[in-house]
């Protein structure tokens, strides 16, 4: 497991008893009864047109303690994101090749949007095409995972999720 960077979630200054959480921790830690600041589970949006791949990536992410929303198209993902129906997404994981809008196009749209551009986007692909990989990284992708994705690939991403 990669060493986790300290969580960016604000630690309440009046309660030194709260230990600095690891980025991968899902624990909700109410500091005091009245304190509204809780350390939430990280929320990942997984986009893939294949039901098999959605099931696998969702399971891998949930096993790593993430909350997961799955959608089957980039169009749907953008819809939900732009409508503000997924306000707390910490990361998007998307397949590269999908009918209609590709994961690459989704990546571009997210990075062009002032509202969404801070969300890290990870691309998954079954094809190892160096050109494709560099294009995605240039466009601002956080990482590029080759399918089939494994649990170890995901734990690498852990420290990058804001």
């Amino acid at each position, binding site marked *: 497991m990669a060493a986790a960077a300290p969580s960016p979630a604000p630690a309440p200054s009046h309660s030194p008893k709260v230990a600095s959480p690891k980025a991968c921790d899902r624990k909700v830690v109410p500091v005091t009864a009245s304190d509204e600041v809780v350390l939430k589970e990280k929320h990942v949006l997984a986009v893939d047109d*294949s*039901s098999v791949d959605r099931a*696998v990536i969702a399971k891998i992410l949930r096993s790593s303690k993430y909350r997961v929303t799955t959608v089957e198209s980039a169009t749907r993902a953008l819809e939900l994101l732009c409508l503000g129906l997924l306000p707390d997404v910490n990361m998007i994981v998307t397949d590269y090749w999908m009918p209609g809008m590709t994961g690459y196009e989704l990546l571009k749209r997210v990075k062009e949007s002032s509202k969404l551009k801070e969300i890290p986007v990870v691309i998954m692909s*079954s094809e190892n095409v160096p050109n494709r990989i560099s294009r995605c990284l240039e466009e601002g992708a956080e990482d590029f995972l080759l*399918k*089939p994705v494994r*649990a170890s690939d995901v734990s690498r991403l852990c420290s990058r999720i804001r």
Partner: protein
Amino acid sequence: MEYSNLRRQIICMKKSLFDQGYLDEQFNQLEELQDESSPNFVEEVVVLFFNDSSRLLTNIEQTLEKYPQDFYQLDSLVHQLKGSGTSIGAIRMKNECSVFKAHCNDKSLEGSLQKMKREHATLKKKLETYFQLMRQAGPRERAVNSRK
């Protein structure tokens, strides 16, 4: 007594699925993901695969029957089939898809299609038997089996 027989059958069957190249390491990865919160995870994913792949094979067959042949559509369908096969570790299916793709320019795809369908049917039968044994053995078996 009954249980250890079943266990032996399961281990044998799994070994042969791997030795004969039907499944690869990815299948083990899926078994490792299985846990108390989703005790039937692997079977569920395999069912998803066969739902998807049966539909894709039908679409491939229909697309092949059209003239002029839509190679773009064919390529897309086979790509999807190859992708989900890879995700469950169905290595022989994956290879058949690659062969099919390679023949896309050949115009002699009918033979490749039949091979793919045969491979698909064989894998389905074997995995159905495998999961039947797993279900008979009960939840205890999953914990043991996931360690290969």
